[in-house]
Protein backbone atom coordinates (compact mmCIF):
# COMPACT_ATOMS: atom_id res chain seq x y z
CA UNK A 1 0.00 0.00 0.00
CA UNK A 2 2.84 2.34 0.90
CA UNK A 3 4.50 1.66 -2.41
CA UNK A 4 1.30 1.99 -4.42
CA UNK A 5 0.60 5.36 -2.85
CA UNK A 6 4.18 6.55 -3.34
CA UNK A 7 4.23 5.44 -6.98
CA UNK A 8 0.93 7.17 -7.60
CA UNK A 9 2.29 10.41 -6.18
CA UNK A 10 5.38 10.12 -8.36
CA UNK A 11 3.20 9.40 -11.37
CA UNK A 12 1.19 12.60 -10.82
CA UNK A 13 4.28 14.83 -10.48
CA UNK A 14 5.91 13.29 -13.51
CA UNK A 15 2.74 13.45 -15.60
CA UNK A 16 2.44 17.18 -14.95
CA UNK A 17 6.07 17.72 -15.96
CA UNK A 18 6.09 15.53 -19.06
CA UNK A 19 4.35 17.94 -21.40
CA UNK A 20 4.87 16.02 -24.63
CA UNK A 21 2.73 13.20 -23.21
CA UNK A 22 0.37 15.18 -21.01
CA UNK A 23 -0.66 17.35 -23.92
CA UNK A 24 -2.38 14.39 -25.58
CA UNK A 25 -4.76 14.04 -22.67
CA UNK A 26 -5.74 17.70 -22.95
CA UNK A 27 -5.31 18.55 -26.61
CA UNK A 28 -7.97 16.30 -28.14
CA UNK A 29 -10.88 17.41 -25.95
CA UNK A 30 -9.84 21.05 -26.43
CA UNK A 31 -9.56 20.82 -30.22
CA UNK A 32 -12.82 18.91 -30.40
CA UNK A 33 -14.48 21.64 -28.37
CA UNK A 34 -13.30 24.46 -30.59
CA UNK A 35 -14.04 22.66 -33.83
CA UNK A 36 -17.57 21.87 -32.81
CA UNK A 37 -18.42 25.46 -31.93
CA UNK A 38 -18.83 25.98 -35.66
CA UNK A 39 -20.78 22.79 -36.28
CA UNK A 40 -24.14 21.40 -35.41
CA UNK A 41 -26.01 18.15 -35.03
CA UNK A 42 -24.56 15.02 -36.56
CA UNK A 43 -21.49 16.77 -37.96
CA UNK A 44 -20.56 18.04 -34.53
CA UNK A 45 -21.08 14.70 -32.79
CA UNK A 46 -19.22 12.91 -35.55
CA UNK A 47 -16.29 15.27 -35.19
CA UNK A 48 -16.17 15.03 -31.44
CA UNK A 49 -16.10 11.26 -31.63
CA UNK A 50 -13.30 11.27 -34.17
CA UNK A 51 -11.27 13.10 -31.58
CA UNK A 52 -12.45 10.68 -28.92
CA UNK A 53 -11.02 7.82 -30.96
CA UNK A 54 -7.71 9.67 -31.37
CA UNK A 55 -7.66 10.43 -27.66
CA UNK A 56 -8.18 6.79 -26.75
CA UNK A 57 -5.85 5.49 -29.43
CA UNK A 58 -2.97 7.80 -28.58
CA UNK A 59 -3.01 9.06 -24.99
CA UNK A 60 -2.95 5.90 -22.88
CA UNK A 61 -0.93 3.93 -25.43
CA UNK A 62 1.85 6.49 -25.64
CA UNK A 63 1.83 7.30 -21.93
CA UNK A 64 2.08 3.70 -20.73
CA UNK A 65 4.56 2.58 -23.40
CA UNK A 66 6.80 5.60 -22.84
CA UNK A 67 6.79 5.38 -19.08
CA UNK A 68 7.82 1.72 -19.04
CA UNK A 69 10.43 2.13 -21.78
CA UNK A 70 11.90 5.19 -20.09
CA UNK A 71 12.08 3.53 -16.67
CA UNK A 72 13.76 0.59 -18.33
CA UNK A 73 16.24 2.65 -20.28
CA UNK A 74 17.21 4.87 -17.35
CA UNK A 75 17.30 1.91 -14.94
CA UNK A 76 14.72 3.47 -12.63
CA UNK A 77 12.95 0.15 -12.53
CA UNK A 78 15.93 -1.66 -11.07
CA UNK A 79 15.94 0.64 -8.06
CA UNK A 80 12.21 0.29 -7.56
CA UNK A 81 12.49 -3.47 -7.61
CA UNK A 82 15.47 -3.35 -5.23
CA UNK A 83 13.25 -1.35 -2.88
CA UNK A 84 10.70 -4.15 -2.91
CA UNK A 85 8.23 -2.91 -5.53
CA UNK A 86 6.59 -5.90 -7.22
CA UNK A 87 6.50 -5.83 -11.04
CA UNK A 88 2.72 -6.08 -11.09
CA UNK A 89 2.37 -3.32 -8.55
CA UNK A 90 4.45 -1.14 -10.83
CA UNK A 91 2.68 -2.08 -14.06
CA UNK A 92 -0.77 -2.00 -12.47
CA UNK A 93 0.00 1.43 -11.08
CA UNK A 94 0.95 2.86 -14.45
CA UNK A 95 -1.98 1.31 -16.30
CA UNK A 96 -4.60 2.36 -13.76
CA UNK A 97 -3.10 5.83 -13.63
CA UNK A 98 -3.42 6.13 -17.41
CA UNK A 99 -7.06 5.05 -17.33
CA UNK A 100 -7.87 7.46 -14.49
CA UNK A 101 -6.21 10.31 -16.37
CA UNK A 102 -8.61 9.62 -19.26
CA UNK A 103 -11.71 10.31 -17.16
CA UNK A 104 -11.72 14.13 -17.48
CA UNK A 105 -11.31 13.88 -21.25
CA UNK A 106 -14.08 11.29 -21.55
CA UNK A 107 -16.40 13.49 -19.46
CA UNK A 108 -15.69 16.39 -21.80
CA UNK A 109 -16.52 14.27 -24.85
CA UNK A 110 -19.72 13.06 -23.21
CA UNK A 111 -20.76 16.62 -22.56
CA UNK A 112 -19.90 17.72 -26.12
CA UNK A 113 -22.10 15.16 -27.85
CA UNK A 114 -25.14 16.15 -25.75
CA UNK A 115 -25.73 12.65 -24.40
CA UNK A 116 -27.95 12.38 -21.32
CA UNK A 117 -26.88 11.89 -17.73
CA UNK A 118 -28.55 8.49 -17.82
CA UNK A 119 -26.20 7.51 -20.64
CA UNK A 120 -23.11 8.68 -18.78
CA UNK A 121 -22.30 5.38 -17.05
CA UNK A 122 -22.38 3.42 -20.29
CA UNK A 123 -20.50 6.19 -22.11
CA UNK A 124 -17.73 6.08 -19.52
CA UNK A 125 -17.69 2.30 -19.41
CA UNK A 126 -17.20 2.05 -23.16
CA UNK A 127 -14.68 4.90 -23.29
CA UNK A 128 -12.61 3.67 -20.38
CA UNK A 129 -12.70 0.08 -21.65
CA UNK A 130 -11.09 1.52 -24.78
CA UNK A 131 -8.52 3.37 -22.66
CA UNK A 132 -7.74 0.13 -20.87
CA UNK A 133 -7.27 -1.70 -24.18
CA UNK A 134 -4.98 1.08 -25.38
CA UNK A 135 -3.03 1.00 -22.08
CA UNK A 136 -2.56 -2.77 -22.23
CA UNK A 137 -1.20 -2.45 -25.73
CA UNK A 138 1.09 0.32 -24.50
CA UNK A 139 2.33 -1.88 -21.66
CA UNK A 140 3.13 -4.65 -24.13
CA UNK A 141 5.08 -2.23 -26.32
CA UNK A 142 6.89 -0.87 -23.27
CA UNK A 143 7.97 -4.37 -22.23
CA UNK A 144 9.43 -5.13 -25.63
CA UNK A 145 11.15 -1.81 -26.32
CA UNK A 146 14.82 -1.58 -25.40
CA UNK A 147 14.65 2.21 -25.13
CA UNK A 148 12.38 5.17 -25.66
CA UNK A 149 13.33 5.62 -29.28
CA UNK A 150 12.58 2.03 -30.20
CA UNK A 151 9.40 2.29 -28.20
CA UNK A 152 8.03 5.13 -30.32
CA UNK A 153 9.00 3.27 -33.48
CA UNK A 154 6.80 0.39 -32.34
CA UNK A 155 3.83 2.33 -31.07
CA UNK A 156 3.56 4.79 -33.95
CA UNK A 157 1.94 2.37 -36.43
CA UNK A 158 -0.36 0.99 -33.72
CA UNK A 159 -1.33 4.51 -32.80
CA UNK A 160 -2.10 5.35 -36.44
CA UNK A 161 -4.38 2.35 -36.77
CA UNK A 162 -6.24 2.98 -33.54
CA UNK A 163 -6.51 6.74 -33.86
CA UNK A 164 -7.34 7.19 -37.50
CA UNK A 165 -9.30 4.14 -38.63
CA UNK A 166 -12.66 5.52 -37.48
CA UNK A 167 -12.16 8.56 -39.68
CA UNK A 168 -10.74 6.64 -42.62
CA UNK A 169 -13.67 4.25 -42.43
CA UNK A 170 -16.14 7.09 -42.93
CA UNK A 171 -14.60 7.97 -46.26
CA UNK A 172 -13.70 4.51 -47.51
CA UNK A 173 -16.67 2.23 -46.93
CA UNK A 174 -14.77 -0.52 -48.75
CA UNK A 175 -12.39 -0.73 -45.83
CA UNK A 176 -15.22 -1.38 -43.40
CA UNK A 177 -14.74 -5.11 -43.74
CA UNK A 178 -11.43 -4.72 -41.89
CA UNK A 179 -11.89 -1.51 -39.99
CA UNK A 180 -15.12 -2.58 -38.29
CA UNK A 181 -13.06 -4.97 -36.21
CA UNK A 182 -10.85 -2.21 -34.77
CA UNK A 183 -12.08 -1.35 -31.29
CA UNK A 184 -11.74 2.42 -31.65
CA UNK A 185 -14.08 2.30 -34.65
CA UNK A 186 -16.62 0.41 -32.58
CA UNK A 187 -16.22 2.87 -29.72
CA UNK A 188 -17.05 5.62 -32.10
CA UNK A 189 -20.12 3.80 -33.43
CA UNK A 190 -21.32 2.87 -29.95
CA UNK A 191 -20.90 6.36 -28.56
CA UNK A 192 -22.44 7.93 -31.62
CA UNK A 193 -25.63 6.08 -30.88
CA UNK A 194 -25.87 8.02 -27.63
CA UNK A 195 -25.89 11.34 -29.40
CA UNK A 196 -29.31 12.87 -30.12
CA UNK A 197 -27.90 13.48 -33.61
CA UNK A 198 -27.83 9.79 -34.35
CA UNK A 199 -31.25 10.05 -36.04
CA UNK A 200 -29.83 12.25 -38.74
CA UNK A 201 -27.14 9.78 -39.62
CA UNK A 202 -28.28 6.35 -38.59
CA UNK A 203 -28.98 5.20 -42.12
CA UNK A 204 -25.68 6.50 -43.39
CA UNK A 205 -23.76 4.74 -40.64
CA UNK A 206 -25.49 1.48 -41.34
CA UNK A 207 -24.75 1.84 -45.01
CA UNK A 208 -21.03 2.36 -44.69
CA UNK A 209 -20.53 -0.33 -42.05
CA UNK A 210 -19.76 -3.97 -42.71
CA UNK A 211 -21.03 -5.30 -39.38
CA UNK A 212 -24.49 -4.34 -38.12
CA UNK A 213 -24.33 -1.05 -36.25
CA UNK A 214 -25.78 -2.09 -32.90
CA UNK A 215 -24.59 -1.81 -29.36
CA UNK A 216 -24.13 -5.58 -28.79
CA UNK A 217 -21.78 -5.85 -31.77
CA UNK A 218 -19.77 -2.85 -30.60
CA UNK A 219 -19.60 -4.08 -27.04
CA UNK A 220 -18.53 -7.51 -28.27
CA UNK A 221 -15.64 -6.12 -30.29
CA UNK A 222 -14.56 -3.65 -27.61
CA UNK A 223 -14.76 -6.27 -24.84
CA UNK A 224 -13.04 -8.83 -27.04
CA UNK A 225 -10.20 -6.38 -27.74
CA UNK A 226 -9.73 -5.60 -24.06
CA UNK A 227 -9.55 -9.30 -23.33
CA UNK A 228 -7.24 -10.01 -26.27
CA UNK A 229 -4.83 -7.21 -25.31
CA UNK A 230 -4.77 -8.38 -21.71
CA UNK A 231 -3.89 -11.89 -22.89
CA UNK A 232 -1.23 -10.55 -25.26
CA UNK A 233 0.21 -8.50 -22.44
CA UNK A 234 0.45 -11.46 -20.07
CA UNK A 235 2.04 -13.55 -22.80
CA UNK A 236 4.57 -10.76 -23.39
CA UNK A 237 5.22 -10.48 -19.68
CA UNK A 238 5.86 -14.19 -19.38
CA UNK A 239 8.27 -14.05 -22.26
CA UNK A 240 10.07 -10.78 -21.50
CA UNK A 241 9.43 -10.15 -17.82
CA UNK A 242 10.40 -6.90 -16.20
CA UNK A 243 14.15 -6.96 -15.63
CA UNK A 244 14.78 -3.52 -14.26
Amino acid at each position, binding site marked *: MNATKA*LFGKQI*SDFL*KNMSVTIMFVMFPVIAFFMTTFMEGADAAFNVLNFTAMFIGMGPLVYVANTIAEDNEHKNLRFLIMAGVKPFQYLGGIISFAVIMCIPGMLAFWWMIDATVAQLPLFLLIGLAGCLASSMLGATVGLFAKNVQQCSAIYTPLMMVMAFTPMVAMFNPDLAVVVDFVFTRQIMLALFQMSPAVYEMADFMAEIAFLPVTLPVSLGIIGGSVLAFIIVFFAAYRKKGLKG
Partner: protein
Amino acid sequence: MISMTNIVKRFGEQTVLHDVSFNVEKQEVFGLLGPSGAGKTTIINILAKQIAAESGEARIDAKPLETGLMLEEDGLYSRLTCTENLNLFAGIYGLSKSKVPEVLASVGLEEAGKKPVNKLSQGMRKRLALARAIIHTPKVLFLDEPTANLDPTTAAGIHKLIKDLCAGGTTVFLTTHNMEEAVDLCDHVALLNKGKIVEYGSPQDICTKYDSFKTVPDLGAVFIKLTSKGVNV
Protein backbone atom coordinates in the same frame (compact mmCIF):
# COMPACT_ATOMS: atom_id res chain seq x y z
CA MET B 1 28.74 -10.05 6.08
CA ILE B 2 29.37 -10.29 2.35
CA SER B 3 31.10 -13.19 0.71
CA MET B 4 31.86 -14.51 -2.73
CA THR B 5 33.13 -18.01 -3.28
CA ASN B 6 34.56 -19.24 -6.58
CA ILE B 7 32.41 -16.96 -8.71
CA VAL B 8 32.73 -17.41 -12.46
CA LYS B 9 30.86 -15.06 -14.79
CA ARG B 10 30.79 -15.10 -18.57
CA PHE B 11 29.28 -12.68 -21.06
CA GLY B 12 28.98 -14.79 -24.19
CA GLU B 13 32.46 -16.05 -25.06
CA GLN B 14 34.24 -13.67 -22.70
CA THR B 15 34.95 -14.85 -19.16
CA VAL B 16 34.74 -11.71 -17.08
CA LEU B 17 35.27 -13.16 -13.60
CA HIS B 18 37.63 -16.09 -13.00
CA ASP B 19 37.04 -17.88 -9.73
CA VAL B 20 36.60 -14.80 -7.55
CA SER B 21 36.47 -15.30 -3.76
CA PHE B 22 36.59 -12.83 -0.87
CA ASN B 23 35.01 -11.98 2.46
CA VAL B 24 33.83 -8.68 3.89
CA GLU B 25 33.45 -8.31 7.63
CA LYS B 26 30.57 -6.55 9.32
CA GLN B 27 30.89 -2.79 9.64
CA GLU B 28 34.00 -2.40 7.55
CA VAL B 29 34.64 -0.38 4.43
CA PHE B 30 35.77 -2.77 1.76
CA GLY B 31 37.31 -1.46 -1.44
CA LEU B 32 37.36 -3.34 -4.70
CA LEU B 33 40.13 -1.78 -6.76
CA GLY B 34 40.95 -2.30 -10.35
CA PRO B 35 41.32 -0.72 -13.78
CA SER B 36 38.35 -0.10 -16.04
CA GLY B 37 36.95 -3.32 -17.44
CA ALA B 38 38.39 -5.43 -14.60
CA GLY B 39 34.93 -6.64 -13.59
CA LYS B 40 34.15 -4.42 -10.57
CA THR B 41 30.65 -3.43 -11.63
CA THR B 42 29.91 -7.02 -12.56
CA ILE B 43 30.81 -8.11 -9.02
CA ILE B 44 28.48 -5.49 -7.52
CA ASN B 45 25.72 -6.57 -9.88
CA ILE B 46 26.13 -10.18 -8.81
CA LEU B 47 26.16 -9.31 -5.11
CA ALA B 48 23.10 -7.08 -5.47
CA LYS B 49 21.39 -9.92 -7.38
CA GLN B 50 21.00 -7.87 -10.52
CA ILE B 51 22.65 -10.59 -12.60
CA ALA B 52 23.42 -14.26 -12.01
CA ALA B 53 26.84 -15.89 -12.12
CA GLU B 54 27.62 -19.10 -14.02
CA SER B 55 28.95 -20.82 -10.93
CA GLY B 56 30.05 -20.11 -7.38
CA GLU B 57 28.22 -18.59 -4.44
CA ALA B 58 27.49 -14.98 -3.50
CA ARG B 59 26.07 -14.25 -0.05
CA ILE B 60 24.97 -11.17 1.85
CA ASP B 61 23.86 -11.39 5.47
CA ALA B 62 21.12 -8.84 4.98
CA LYS B 63 17.66 -8.96 3.48
CA PRO B 64 17.18 -7.36 0.07
CA LEU B 65 15.40 -4.42 1.71
CA GLU B 66 18.36 -3.93 4.03
CA THR B 67 20.76 -3.25 1.18
CA GLY B 68 21.42 0.04 -0.52
CA LEU B 69 22.79 0.43 -4.02
CA MET B 70 24.40 3.20 -5.99
CA LEU B 71 25.43 2.50 -9.57
CA GLU B 72 26.88 4.53 -12.38
CA GLU B 73 23.47 4.44 -14.06
CA ASP B 74 21.75 6.22 -11.23
CA GLY B 75 18.11 5.55 -12.17
CA LEU B 76 16.92 8.93 -10.91
CA TYR B 77 13.77 10.46 -12.38
CA SER B 78 15.22 13.35 -14.30
CA ARG B 79 12.08 15.48 -14.57
CA LEU B 80 11.35 15.22 -10.85
CA THR B 81 13.01 17.28 -8.14
CA CYS B 82 15.46 15.87 -5.61
CA THR B 83 12.76 15.90 -2.95
CA GLU B 84 10.23 14.17 -5.22
CA ASN B 85 12.75 11.46 -6.07
CA LEU B 86 13.41 10.79 -2.41
CA ASN B 87 9.74 11.10 -1.44
CA LEU B 88 9.04 8.19 -3.76
CA PHE B 89 11.54 5.94 -2.01
CA ALA B 90 10.65 7.16 1.48
CA GLY B 91 7.07 6.21 0.58
CA ILE B 92 8.01 2.80 -0.79
CA TYR B 93 10.03 1.99 2.34
CA GLY B 94 7.24 3.32 4.53
CA LEU B 95 9.44 6.00 6.09
CA SER B 96 8.18 9.32 7.35
CA LYS B 97 8.45 12.26 4.93
CA SER B 98 10.63 14.09 7.45
CA LYS B 99 13.40 11.63 6.59
CA VAL B 100 13.80 13.30 3.18
CA PRO B 101 15.18 16.71 4.19
CA GLU B 102 17.30 14.92 6.76
CA VAL B 103 19.00 12.68 4.24
CA LEU B 104 19.30 15.52 1.71
CA ALA B 105 21.16 17.51 4.34
CA SER B 106 23.42 14.56 5.08
CA VAL B 107 24.70 14.63 1.48
CA GLY B 108 24.87 18.43 1.40
CA LEU B 109 21.88 18.93 -0.87
CA GLU B 110 19.64 20.72 1.62
CA GLU B 111 19.29 23.70 -0.69
CA ALA B 112 18.69 21.69 -3.86
CA GLY B 113 15.48 19.97 -2.77
CA LYS B 114 13.32 21.83 -5.27
CA LYS B 115 15.73 21.45 -8.18
CA PRO B 116 14.80 18.99 -10.92
CA VAL B 117 17.39 16.27 -11.37
CA ASN B 118 18.11 17.26 -14.98
CA LYS B 119 19.32 20.65 -13.68
CA LEU B 120 21.82 19.15 -11.22
CA SER B 121 25.58 19.05 -11.71
CA GLN B 122 27.20 15.65 -11.97
CA GLY B 123 28.43 15.80 -8.39
CA MET B 124 25.02 16.79 -7.04
CA ARG B 125 23.38 14.03 -8.99
CA LYS B 126 25.79 11.51 -7.52
CA ARG B 127 25.09 12.77 -4.04
CA LEU B 128 21.36 12.44 -4.65
CA ALA B 129 21.89 8.85 -5.81
CA LEU B 130 23.81 8.26 -2.60
CA ALA B 131 21.01 9.83 -0.57
CA ARG B 132 18.54 7.44 -2.16
CA ALA B 133 20.84 4.49 -1.42
CA ILE B 134 21.02 5.33 2.30
CA ILE B 135 17.55 6.72 2.99
CA HIS B 136 16.43 3.47 4.62
CA THR B 137 19.66 3.13 6.66
CA PRO B 138 20.72 -0.12 5.00
CA LYS B 139 22.87 -2.70 6.72
CA VAL B 140 24.91 -3.21 3.58
CA LEU B 141 25.70 -0.46 1.12
CA PHE B 142 27.12 -1.02 -2.38
CA LEU B 143 28.73 1.96 -4.05
CA ASP B 144 30.03 1.68 -7.59
CA GLU B 145 32.69 4.36 -8.07
CA PRO B 146 31.02 6.79 -5.70
CA THR B 147 33.51 9.57 -6.32
CA ALA B 148 34.50 9.10 -9.97
CA ASN B 149 34.62 12.43 -11.82
CA LEU B 150 33.91 14.46 -8.70
CA ASP B 151 35.81 17.48 -7.49
CA PRO B 152 37.96 16.84 -4.40
CA THR B 153 35.64 18.76 -2.06
CA THR B 154 32.58 16.77 -3.02
CA ALA B 155 34.61 13.58 -2.90
CA ALA B 156 35.84 14.43 0.60
CA GLY B 157 32.25 15.04 1.66
CA ILE B 158 31.30 11.61 0.40
CA HIS B 159 34.29 10.06 2.16
CA LYS B 160 33.17 11.57 5.44
CA LEU B 161 29.64 10.33 4.91
CA ILE B 162 30.90 6.81 4.19
CA LYS B 163 32.96 6.84 7.38
CA ASP B 164 29.96 8.08 9.38
CA LEU B 165 27.73 5.37 7.94
CA CYS B 166 30.29 2.76 8.78
CA ALA B 167 30.61 4.07 12.33
CA GLY B 168 26.83 3.82 12.52
CA GLY B 169 26.96 0.09 11.75
CA THR B 170 26.71 -0.06 7.97
CA THR B 171 28.96 -2.36 6.00
CA VAL B 172 30.20 -0.54 2.90
CA PHE B 173 31.36 -2.22 -0.28
CA LEU B 174 32.76 0.22 -2.80
CA THR B 175 34.68 0.11 -6.05
CA THR B 176 37.19 2.66 -7.16
CA HIS B 177 40.23 3.13 -9.31
CA ASN B 178 41.41 5.94 -7.10
CA MET B 179 44.15 4.56 -4.86
CA GLU B 180 44.33 7.57 -2.52
CA GLU B 181 40.67 7.09 -1.86
CA ALA B 182 41.22 3.43 -1.07
CA VAL B 183 43.99 4.23 1.42
CA ASP B 184 41.92 6.93 3.06
CA LEU B 185 38.71 4.96 3.38
CA CYS B 186 39.09 1.23 3.28
CA ASP B 187 39.75 -1.25 6.06
CA HIS B 188 40.47 -3.91 3.48
CA VAL B 189 40.90 -3.86 -0.25
CA ALA B 190 41.03 -6.43 -3.00
CA LEU B 191 42.86 -5.71 -6.22
CA LEU B 192 41.03 -7.01 -9.24
CA ASN B 193 42.73 -7.34 -12.60
CA LYS B 194 41.14 -8.92 -15.67
CA GLY B 195 38.59 -10.71 -13.54
CA LYS B 196 41.09 -12.18 -11.06
CA ILE B 197 41.82 -11.03 -7.52
CA VAL B 198 45.56 -10.46 -7.51
CA GLU B 199 46.01 -9.03 -4.01
CA TYR B 200 44.02 -8.72 -0.80
CA GLY B 201 44.63 -7.08 2.60
CA SER B 202 44.61 -3.79 4.43
CA PRO B 203 46.06 -0.93 2.37
CA GLN B 204 48.82 -0.55 4.99
CA ASP B 205 49.82 -4.23 4.84
CA ILE B 206 49.79 -4.32 1.06
CA CYS B 207 52.00 -1.24 0.86
CA THR B 208 54.34 -2.71 3.44
CA LYS B 209 54.51 -5.95 1.49
CA TYR B 210 55.53 -4.11 -1.68
CA ASP B 211 57.51 -1.49 0.29
CA SER B 212 55.51 1.19 -1.46
CA PHE B 213 55.28 4.48 0.43
CA LYS B 214 55.60 8.01 -0.81
CA THR B 215 55.75 11.52 0.51
CA VAL B 216 54.41 14.06 -1.91
CA PRO B 217 53.15 17.62 -1.62
CA ASP B 218 49.47 17.25 -0.76
CA LEU B 219 47.71 19.91 -2.81
CA GLY B 220 44.48 18.00 -2.46
CA ALA B 221 44.34 18.69 1.27
CA VAL B 222 44.89 22.40 0.65
CA PHE B 223 42.16 22.45 -1.98
CA ILE B 224 39.71 20.80 0.37
CA LYS B 225 40.64 23.10 3.23
CA LEU B 226 40.06 26.20 1.14
CA THR B 227 36.88 25.12 -0.59
CA SER B 228 35.01 23.34 2.18
CA LYS B 229 31.95 24.80 3.82
CA GLY B 230 32.44 27.62 6.30
CA VAL B 231 35.63 28.86 4.71
CA ASN B 232 35.59 32.49 3.69
CA VAL B 233 38.42 33.47 1.44
